[in-house]
C-alpha cells in the first residue's frame, strides 16, 4: 500500500500519478466554503421566493419581518435596478414588478441566525397578481403566447446571440447547408421523430453556498462554491457598480459543480445584502430543496428530427428543429442553444442540413450549463434517430455509425473542417468490449436482454476569446508552485496542471504544487471552469508559463557557464549541459541566482514564468446560414455502449455492463481520464433511468432526494470498461483535449438503443423508469 511514500515521478505526462488534492479530502481537512469560520459578526441570509410561475408583484410589506428580534434588514428589488446576465442581460438581482418562475428571489432577509432569517422570510408579505404562465417551449415560441420579457428587444447582448424581439425566443440559431428539400426524394429511408428531454438537476452533493462581505471602504470579498470566480467578479462588479479591482472572489474547495456553479447563480444575493450591512459577512446557503427548484437546471428540450439515408446507409439529409425550455431568464440557455445548433448533427457527416435551434422563455426554472452543455439532450434525439434509421435500412447500428461518423477532413454542417478524430476506433473498442453481435440469453425467462451503442461529440462552448493564464514560481528548495485561475472541481485539474508543469520544466511531479484556493486577487485570470476546456486551454497556459520559467533558468545557467542555452536542459530537477555533461541542481539558483563566471557579481534571480493562452482562430457564424470557417476550437468524440436486462414483471432496467471510449488527444493522466469516463457515464445513466424534474404548473413536485432519485452504488454496473483513444490535438498541451463532460453525453441514447434491442420497442423520452417501460410493454402486448 504505497500511497504516501515519497516518490519521484519524472516525465509524468501520460502517467497515472496520484491526485494532489486528496489527503485533505480523505481526512476532512479540506476547506469548503461552508467550513470557513467567520466569527460573531456573521449574518445569515434567507430568501423570500416567488410561489408563482408568472405574476405581477403588487406590494411587498416587510414591516413585520423587520420587527422580529435578530433581524437586521430586508432588501428587495427596489434596492437594485441593474440588469445582470452572462450573455443576455435579462434579469435583476431580485424580481422587480414581476416574477417569472417559482423560486425566483423577491427579497432577502439578513439576521443573526439562519433560523431567525428563515422565520422572518415567512413574515414578509408579498401581494401578487397571477399571470398566465408559459409552460411549454414550443407553445412559448408561437405568436400569441404570453410574453415573458416584453423588453427582450432592448436587452444588452453579445453579437452571436440572436433574440427575436416581440416573441419569447431569446436566441434563434440556424444552419442552412446544402439543400435538404432536394435531398429527401433521393433517400431510400427516412425517419422522423420528436423527442422530449425533461429538465434535470445537477445535484452536486455540496449545495450552493456563498458569503459576501463589504468593507467600510467599499471593497467586496465573496467566498463562494463556484466554478467561475473571474466571471462572477466581472458580472457582479459591473452590476453592483464596484470597480473590478475592489471585488475579490475566493473560491475554496468545491463539492461538485457539473455546471450549476458556473456563472452567477445565488451569489448575487449575499453580495447585494452585504452592500447594506458593511463590515458583516453575509452568508447564504441553499437548502437541498432550494438547490433543486431555484437553481439553474439542465433545460428541457423538445427536438423534432428528420433524417434520411441512401440504400447503402449513407446519410443524405438531416433536419433538426429544437425548442429549448430556457426558463424565465437565460443565463446560459442562449448559448446552450447555440452549441446545440452548431453541433446539431451529432458526430455524423451529412451533406444537407437544416437546423433551427431556439431558446424559448418559459415560466420554468432558469436553464444553466449542465455537464455536456446541451449535447446530452441533443444526442438523446440524434443518436436514437440514427439507431432507428439503421434499423429501417436493415443495417447493424455499429456498421451504420462507422459508415457515417465524422472523420478528419470532413466539412461539418457549419463549414468548419474537422481535425483528425478517433471516433471509429472508439466505436470498435466499445463494440468489442460488449461482444457486439453476440446475442446473450437473458438470465431468467422473466427478463429481456439487449445491447445498444451511441456516439457523442462535444466542443468547448464558449465565447471565441475565452482565455487562460498561469504563473510558474520556482522555489529555493527546488519545488515549483503553479498558480492558475481554473477551479479544481473534482475532475483532477490541479493534478493535470502539476503534471504539465513538471513535464515541461523537467522536474518530478511530486515537486510541483498547485496553489489554491483560487483568489481573483492573487490567481491569474481564467475565463471559467466549464466546457471541458481546462486541460487544453489552461494546460496550454501552464505549459507556456513553464516554458517561460525554463527559459529563464537556462538563460541564467548558460550565461554563468558561458554556454548556449540550446545545449542545456532540465532533467529531474538538474540543469544539465549536453555539451559539457556538467550539471547543477535547480535548488537555490532559481531564487538566489548564480555568480558570474568572473565572480564579479551575480546573475539571474527569482524565477517566475508567466504564460497565457487564448484561441484566436474561432470565427463568427453567419446569422442566417450558420456558416463560418471555424465554429469551435475542436471536438472530443467517442462512443458508449451498454448491455441491459429488462424485468418483465416490473419494467425495471438493470445495466449489466457498459463500455466507454473517447478520443482525448492525449491522456495527461490516464487514471483521471478513466475516472471522468466512469463518473460521467454513471451520471448519464442516472438521467437515463431515474431523473427528471416533475414540473407541474411551473412547480417542481420532486425537489428532494427522496422524490428525485439519483443513482446509488447499488444501481451501477460493476463493470464499466473504459478505453482511451489518442489522436493528438494539434494545439493542445502534449496533444490533449478535454474529457470532463463527454462521457455523460451518449448515455441516454445508448440505453434507449439497448432497450429497443431487448424489447423491440422505442421508448424514446427519458427517463426510462420502470413504470414507463412496464406500461410500454403492457401497451404493446408484450406482458399481460
Amino acid at each position, binding site marked *: 500500500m504505497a500511497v504516501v511514500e515519497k516518490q519521484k515521478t519524472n516525465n509524468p505526462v501520460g502517467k497515472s500519478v496520484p491526485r494532489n488534492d486528496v489527503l485533505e479530502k480523505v481526512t476532512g481537512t479540506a476547506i469548503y466554503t461552508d467550513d470557513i469560520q467567520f466569527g460573531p459578526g456573521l449574518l445569515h441570509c434567507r430568501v423570500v421566493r416567488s410561489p408563482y410561475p408568472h405574476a405581477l408583484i403588487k406590494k411587498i410589506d416587510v414591516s413585520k419581518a423587520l420587527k422580529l428580534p435578530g433581524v437586521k434588514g430586508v432588501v428587495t428589488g427596489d434596492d437594485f435596478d441593474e440588469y445582470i446576465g452572462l450573455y443576455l442581460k435579462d434579469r435583476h438581482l431580485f424580481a422587480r414588478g414581476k416574477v417569472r418562475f417559482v423560486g425566483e428571489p423577491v427579497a432577502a432577509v439578513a439576521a443573526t441566525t439562519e433560523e431567525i432569517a428563515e422565520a422572518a422570510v415567512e413574515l414578509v408579505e408579498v401581494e401578487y397578481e397571477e399571470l398566465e404562465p408559459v409552460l411549454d417551449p414550443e407553445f412559448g415560441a408561437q405568436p400569441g403566447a404570453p410574453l415573458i420579457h416584453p423588453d427582450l428587444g432592448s436587452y444588452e447582448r453579445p453579437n452571436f446571440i440572436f433574440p427575436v424581439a416581440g416573441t419569447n425566443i431569446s436566441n434563434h440559431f440556424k444552419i442552412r447547408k446544402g439543400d435538404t428539400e432536394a435531398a429527401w426524394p433521393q433517400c431510400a429511408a427516412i425517419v422522423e421523430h420528436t423527442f422530449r428531454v425533461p429538465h434535470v438537476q445537477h445535484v452536486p452533493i455540496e449545495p450552493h453556498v456563498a458569503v459576501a462581505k463589504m468593507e467600510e471602504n467599499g471593497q467586496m470579498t465573496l467566498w463562494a462554491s463556484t466554478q467561475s470566480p473571474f466571471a462572477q467578479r466581472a458580472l457582479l462588479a459591473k452590476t453592483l457598480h464596484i470597480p473590478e479591482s475592489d471585488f475579490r472572489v475566493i473560491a475554496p474547495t468545491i463539492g461538485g459543480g457539473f455546471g450549476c456553479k458556473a456563472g452567477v447563480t445565488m451569489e448575487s444575493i449575499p453580495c447585494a445584502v452585504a452592500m447594506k450591512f458593511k463590515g458583516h459577512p453575509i452568508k447564504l446557503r441553499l437548502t437541498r430543496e432550494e438547490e433543486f427548484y431555484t437553481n439553474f437546471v439542465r433545460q428541457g428540450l423538445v427536438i423534432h428530427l428528420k433524417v434520411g439515408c441512401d440504400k447503402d446507409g449513407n446519410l443524405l439529409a438531416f433536419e433538426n428543429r429544437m425548442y429549448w425550455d430556457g426558463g424565465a431568464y437565460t443565463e446560459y440557455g442562449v448559448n446552450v442553444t447555440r452549441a446545440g445548433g452548431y453541433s446539431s448533427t451529432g458526430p455524423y457527416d451529412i451533406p444537407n442540413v437544416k437546423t433551427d435551434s431556439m431558446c424559448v422563455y418559459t415560466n420554468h426554472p432558469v436553464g444553466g450549463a449542465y455537464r455536456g452543455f446541451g449535447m446530452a439532450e441533443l444526442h438523446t434525439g440524434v443518436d436514437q434517430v440514427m439507431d432507428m434509421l439503421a434499423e429501417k435500412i436493415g443495417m447493424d447500428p455499429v456498421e451504420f455509425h462507422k459508415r457515417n461518423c465524422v472523420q478528419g477532413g470532413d466539412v461539418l454542417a457549419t463549414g468548419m473542417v474537422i481535425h483528425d478524430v478517433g471516433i471509429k476506433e472508439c466505436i470498435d473498442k466499445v463494440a468489442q468490449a460488449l461482444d457486439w453481435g453476440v446475442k446473450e440469453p437473458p438470465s431468467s425467462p422473466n427478463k429481456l436482454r439487449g445491447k445498444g451503442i451511441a456516439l457523442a461529440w462535444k466542443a468547448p462552448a464558449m465565447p471565441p476569446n475565452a482565455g487562460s493564464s498561469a504563473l510558474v514560481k520556482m522555489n529555493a528548495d527546488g519545488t515549483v508552485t503553479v498558480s492558475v485561475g481554473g477551479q479544481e472541481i473534482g475532475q483532477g485539474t490541479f493534478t493535470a496542471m502539476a503534471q504539465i508543469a513538471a513535464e515541461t520544466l523537467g522536474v518530478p511531479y511530486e515537486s510541483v504544487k498547485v496553489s489554491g484556493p483560487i483568489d481573483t486577487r492573487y490567481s491569474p485570470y481564467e475565463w471559467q471552469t466549464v466546457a471541458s476546456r481546462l486541460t487544453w486551454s489552461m494546460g496550454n497556459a501552464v505549459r507556456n508559463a513553464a516554458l517561460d520559467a525554463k527559459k529563464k533558468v537556462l538563460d541564467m545557467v548558460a550565461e554563468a557557464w558561458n554556454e548556449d542555452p540550446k545545449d542545456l536542459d532540465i532533467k529531474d530537477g538538474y540543469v544539465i549541459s549536453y555539451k559539457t555533461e556538467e550539471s547543477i541542481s535547480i535548488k537555490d539558483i532559481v531564487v538566489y541566482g548564480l555568480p558570474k563566471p568572473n565572480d564579479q557579481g551575480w546573475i539571474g534571480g527569482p524565477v517566475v514564468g508567466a504564460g497565457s493562452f487564448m484561441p484566436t482562430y474561432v470565427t463568427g457564424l453567419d446569422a442566417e446560414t450558420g456558416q463560418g470557417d471555424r465554429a469551435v476550437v475542436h471536438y472530443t468524440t467517442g462512443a458508449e455502449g451498454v448491455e441491459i436486462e429488462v424485468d418483465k414483471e416490473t419494467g425495471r432496467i438493470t445495466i449489466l455492463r457498459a463500455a466507454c471510449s473517447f478520443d482525448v488527444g492525449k491522456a495527461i493522466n490516464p487514471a483521471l481520464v478513466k475516472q471522468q469516463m466512469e463518473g460521467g457515464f454513471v451520471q448519464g445513466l442516472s438521467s437515463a433511468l431515474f431523473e427528471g424534474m416533475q414540473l407541474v404548473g411551473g412547480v417542481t413536485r420532486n425537489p428532494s432526494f427522496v422524490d428525485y432519485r439519483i443513482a*446509488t452504488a447499488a444501481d451501477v454496473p460493476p463493470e464499466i470498461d473504459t478505453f482511451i483513444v489518442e489522436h493528438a490535438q494539434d494545439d493542445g498541451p502534449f496533444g490533449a483535449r478535454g474529457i470532463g463532460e463527454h462521457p455523460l453525453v451518449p448515455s441516454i441514447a445508448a440505453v434507449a438503443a439497448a432497450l429497443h434491442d431487448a424489447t423491440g420497442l422505442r421508448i424514446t423520452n427519458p427517463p426510462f423508469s420502470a*413504470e414507463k417501460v412496464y406500461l410500454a410493454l403492457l401497451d404493446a402486448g408484450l406482458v399481460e
Partner: protein
Amino acid sequence: MHNPHPGLPEIDYIKPATLEEASRFLASHAGEARPFMGGTDCIVRIRDGVWKTKYLVDVKGLDGTDGIRFEAGKGLTIGAAVPMNKVAAHPDVQKHYPVLVEACHWVASYQLRSRATIVGNICNASPAGDTIGACMLLGGVLRVFGPDGMRDEPLNGFFKGPGKTNLKPGDIATALFLPLPPAGSVGRYIKLGRNRLGDLAIVGVTALGYPDASAASGFRFGIALASVAPVPLRASKAEEILAGKAIDEGVIAEAAQAAMDACTPIDDTRGSARYRKLMVRNLTRSALVDIWTKIRK
C-alpha cells in the same frame, strides 16, 4: 411549494424521567408535543414545516422501551426504542421472524436504520411504511402507556388514515409484541422503488404463509400492501381465495388479481395509480409463488 427550513426551527427537546411524566407532558401539550424515538420522521417533517411541533419528547429509555426479549413458546417483545438494525441483527428475530428482518432491510439506508425504529414506523402510519405489513401479518400488538395506564393496541384496526392511528395525545407506545408464528411459516417482503435501494415504496407487498389445517391447501396466507391505499392494507379478499382453494398457479393469479382490485392507490411523484395496481398484482403473485415453493419443502 415545498420550502423546508435550513435546519429545525426553534423547538425544545424534553427528556422526561418516567412514562407518567412523559405522558402528562404530551397530554397537556396536545398538538404541540410529540413522542420522539429515532426522530427520522420527526426531524424531517418538522424541518419541512409540515408538523408545527414545539416540543420533542424523547421517550427512548423509558420503562419497557429498551431491549428485545424472546420468550420461547410465546413470542417477541421489541422495545419501542430499539432501532431497526438492532432488530434485524438479533438472532431470535432472524430465526423466528425472518420476514421482519427482510422488511427492515428495505428501509432507507443502513445509517438511517441505526436510528429509525419499527415502532416509529408504525406510529408514523405512513401507507408506505415498509415494516408495517410484516408486523400486521405477524399479529403485532403495540403496548401503549397512556393517561389511563397501559393497554394493548392490536395493529389490525390501528391505522385510521395517513399519519392517523388509534393513539391519543399522551399515549406512548413502549413496545411491540409479536406472537410466535406457527412453525413452518414462510414470509416475503417485496418492495419496488424507482431505483434499487433507498426509495420509498412505489408498492410494497408483504406475504406470509403458514400451516393451517382449516385451509383447503393446508396453508393459510396473509397479504399486506404498502403505498396503495390511505392506510397499510390487508388484502382480505385475496387471503380468502387462497384459504378456500387448493393452491395452483391459477389460484395464485386469482388472489393476486384480488389484491390488485382491493387497492386504491393515487398518482404521486413515485408512480401512477395504474402502475401501482399492476405492480400489486405482479409482486403479490411473485411473493406467493416464492412462498408456495418454499413452504411445501
